[in-house]
């Protein structure tokens, strides 16, 4: 059973191209844990801002009447991928894992697969 810090460390070390990772509560926008990032990439700011991304998508789905759940959200920048994976927590408090990848080094399919595995270790 991984604790949050171990899960973040594993994401950082096992997912190729990862430059930062955060575990975020999407109601409050609080980062429950962050790893990586740095002076030019404030993960806490990114965490709070991306809660609006998740909320907007959930609201759009409601407007469209889509009865489904978001598994992950991918944002492709020129040089980075930002991957948001919503966690299915038993407590039902909405959390998501937020991953920043260097697109030159990352393997997107592998990253999504690894993130799924890390989620399972964190929550099962």
């Amino acid at each position, binding site marked *: 059973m991984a*604790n949050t810090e171990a899960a973040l460390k594993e994401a950082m070390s096992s997912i190729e191209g990862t430059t930062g990772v955060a575990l975020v509560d999407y*109601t409050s926008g*609080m980062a429950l844990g962050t790893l990586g990032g740095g002076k030019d990439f404030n993960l806490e700011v990114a965490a709070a801002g991306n809660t609006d991304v998740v909320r907007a998508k959930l609201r759009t789905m409601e407007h469209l009447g889509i009865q489904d759940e978001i598994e992950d959200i991918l944002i492709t920048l020129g040089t980075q991928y930002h991957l948001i994976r919503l966690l299915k*927590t038993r*407590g039902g*408090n909405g959390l998501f894992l937020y991953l920043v990848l260097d697109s030159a080094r990352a393997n997107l399919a592998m990253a999504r697969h690894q993130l799924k595995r890390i989620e399972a270790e*964190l929550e099962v």
Partner: protein
Amino acid sequence: MRPLTAGPDEDARHTTPSPMLQRLAAERATGALLRDRGTLYLADGQVVHAESPATPGIDILLTTGGALRHEGWWDAVAQAGAGQRVARYLVDSGHVPGGALELCHLGALYDAAFFALAPTRTPARFRYGVSHWIGPVRPVAVDAVQRETLRRRELLDRIWPDALTDTAPVTRTAYPLDAPVPPRQLRVLELADGVRTASDIARELGRSAFHLLVDLRRLAAAGLVEAVGREAAPGAAAHGLAALPETADPDVALLRRLRDALEAL
């Protein structure tokens, strides 16, 4: 008179909700900081636990959320309460996965700290050497707790600047749902009966009270919820703003929000 530029006092108010907490962190104190609306437990100058009557404790969050059965909780308290290792016992005995416990505890800690660090005129007290029976989970730096508390205050005010729904009983307004409301907020709306407060609803749903404040402010911003006692607020009637005429105009909700925002200035 308040100076136009932020003086040292103003800075202090914005950067540290509790200067005393700052000092205790600097001296790496261990004990309990008792404030008006909650208690922060420190170990070696770091926050290890927090409690507030305004928000459900970790026991309610774990059991109502379905992560743990009531018996499991009481078993842990009986077995490990005296030794102050309840959290460790819950994980070691297989009641709760370590990751889930840590996340739940962190959530409860920041949540209670937000209420405990609310502005107050009652002086705080610190009891040296006191520790909490939940035992070690994951300590958090005082700076992180204070920063997050300030961020949360700003977040609430950004959503909707009227804090009345934070503490007063809340009720549904007469306005119909003209857009889909997220399921989580819908459950909150169903419990807004004019008697329950944010804390009551949080306890009933087994959710963080801060999350409830966020949901209620969002619902207030949408014109769906208001604090009871709002109509009786002194001055509201005197300004001739108390009642809007009944009309089929779809912008009534907007007008109402504008009115509330103006009143909140």
